[in-house]
């Protein structure tokens, strides 16, 4: 008798799951607004905090602009990218096939971007990426508001060459994004006549994501006699790298990085991060009207500092807003119309300063900044030191 009851419960549950699933798949096509935007970001997994910053940045723009892009009501569909293409692809497919979105935006990881980019190209949907991405051959439908992964390194390399008297050690995580980030620095730096401190002249790669213990590498770095270290790490690895750096033989060697201290990791890094110089296309203390507005709006809603992730997503929303605004009111907002409109956008006024899309790479031509971690009262913050190069041409 008990088994029979259990069976009934199980079958009923299974049936309910099935019904719910069907209801979900069948329920809400078309969207309630004039324009439907799909936003993909990591809301679980390794880069959850980055994904949440991105979602919040996008949503903030929408909320502060009456929920409209170019006068049209926006129906925003958010999907979880998870930890990579395995979860990101189904998430994006749902937005494309079921929600029938007019454009896609967001995306944290380079691998996810590559997979979703293929989907966007195939379905002829504009994709406005808002974080790092690989350089892809065909980008007629692809745009993004952040940067190409090798640009931070390109931007900071001349500064490092001019200010460090001796060889620099290059180290980064062993995955495509890490390779791209480091290649930008190493290629530019060596072209300028710089010499790597790495014994074999090659960048040191640390297994990703499993490396949590950087001491063996740091010990090795100290033995090379490097005058500075350049690295790219984000998330958990950035916390471990910076904390352990400060307690290792390498502690006295100046540390330069891309991203290293951006976002939520800074709090966990604590005092160990003080003094680290890093390159980015944004700093919360940039003094321009757009940034003052952005920081004020952000701070009113969130207890944390705004990040480049939030800023780039905010800009992705701005790009869509301005592009859709150029579509005549009597004309339907189609994917193709949005894409055409984006390509016609000129200079964009942004919290990071003004920038515009490069007509071939579809990525920003923008100014990069050198920042240094310092105490801002009780809180650690990335303080603007100086402007670096304008990169993206």
């Amino acid at each position, binding site marked *: 008798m008990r088994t029979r009851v259990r069976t009934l419960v199980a079958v009923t549950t299974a049936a309910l799951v099935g019904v719910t699933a069907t209801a979900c798949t069948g329920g809400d096509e078309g969207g309630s607004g004039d324009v439907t935007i799909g936003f993909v970001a990591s809301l679980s997994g390794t880069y959850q905090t980055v994904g949440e910053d991105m979602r919040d940045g996008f949503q903030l723009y929408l909320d502060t602009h009456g929920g409209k892009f170019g006068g049209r009501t926006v129906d925003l569909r958010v999907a979880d990218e998870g930890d990579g293409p395995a979860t990101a692809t189904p998430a994006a497919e749902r937005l494309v096939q079921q929600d029938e979105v007019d454009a896609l935006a967001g995306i944290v990881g380079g691998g996810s971007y590559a997979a979703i980019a293929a989907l966007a190209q195939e379905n002829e949907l504009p994709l406005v990426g808002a974080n790092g991405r690989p350089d892809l051959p065909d980008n007629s439908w692809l745009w993004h508001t952040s940067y190409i992964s090798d640009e931070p390194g390109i931007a900071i390399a001349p500064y490092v060459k001019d200010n460090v008297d001796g060889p620099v050690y290059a180290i980064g995580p062993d995955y495509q994004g890490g390779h791209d980030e480091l290649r930008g620095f190493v290629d530019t730096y060596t072209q300028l006549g710089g010499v790597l401190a790495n014994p074999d002249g090659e960048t040191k790669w640390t297994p990703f994501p499993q490396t949590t213990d950087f001491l063996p590498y740091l010990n090795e770095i100290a*033995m090379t006699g490097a005058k500075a270290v350049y690295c790219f790490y984000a998330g*958990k690895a950035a916390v471990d790298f910076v904390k352990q750096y400060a307690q290792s033989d390498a502690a006295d060697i100046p540390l330069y990085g891309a991203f290293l201290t951006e976002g939520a990791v800074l709090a*966990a890094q604590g005092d160990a991060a003080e003094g680290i110089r890093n390159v980015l296309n944004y700093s919360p203390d940039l003094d321009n009207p757009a940034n003052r507005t952005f920081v004020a709006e952000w701070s009113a809603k969130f207890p944390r500092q705004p990040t480049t992730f939030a800023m780039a997503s905010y800009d992705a929303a701005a790009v869509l807003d301005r592009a859709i605004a150029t579509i005549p009111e009597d004309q339907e907002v189609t994917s193709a119309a949005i894409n055409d409109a984006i390509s016609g956008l000129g200079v964009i006024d942004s919290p990071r300063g003004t920038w515009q899309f490069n007509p071939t790479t579809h990525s920003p031509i923008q100014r990069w900044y050198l920042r240094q971690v310092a105490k801002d009262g009780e809180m650690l913050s990335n303080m603007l030191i100086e402007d670096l190069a304008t990169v993206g041409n």
Partner: protein
Amino acid sequence: MIDAYLIPAVNGLAYGLLLFTVAAGLTLIFGVADVLNLAHGTVYVAGGYVAVSVSDGTWAGLGLGVLAGAAAGLVSGAVLWAALTPLSGRGHLTQALLTFGIALAGGALLEKAFGADELRPVLPAALDGSVDLAGHRFPTYRLLFIAVAAVLAVAGWLVITRTRVGARVRAVVDDRDMVAALGVDPRVVLAAVLAVGGALAGVAGALGAPILGPGPSTAPQTLLLSLIVVVVGGLGSIGGAFLAAIAVGQVQSLGVVLLPSVSPYLLFAAMAVALLVRGWRGRGVTA
């Protein structure tokens, strides 16, 4: 030349001892209660989270963190006991399904409670720096951790080899049928072992937070490493787990210095080789 390997070796020892403190509980749970507990990494992380949230840069905060970690581990053990008790006799795969489900759900709840950020405890100033070790800088906390973990390991070894409880544990690990012969209710054995194993993981999470700190990806990583330690160590053998943990620590630390070109492969290749070699040597009986 030796100089280049000193710091990685000492660091590997710290890392290995950390893995041992995590894996000891897991191997005990497997060896005595025959439970494959895939929620063990989540218990570690729970210990880490509560320790971080009570840490305030004082020594009292540090001690309180360890106690809180142990308490969190005990509570987790009780939850697991309640969940596992109805499942007796349903095999390792069902246990794996249940405990992995608990790990996923528990991890998600922990993240709701403590946030998705990487957290690290605030250590007393005296520990939050480095000391001189044969002319090299080495993190003070890791050196202290080596000492504390070594004391824990010796204490554990004494309990296992010198006490009646320890003798019973060894007997049960060698021959599961001994549980019946001891005249103890198997449910009591399960409860005791899950409590002790959970508390060990919670303490490890608290003590290990500055080294392997809590965050969204910490639980699966800790689980995987301690599973490797437990299986290579011989499933239930505390001594075996100790040796395996030290070996894994050195593979992760010295290995990346000695064999940098294959470092991504090292851990799993070493595990596969260890298991297969042991398998071949242990094949006296082919019944």
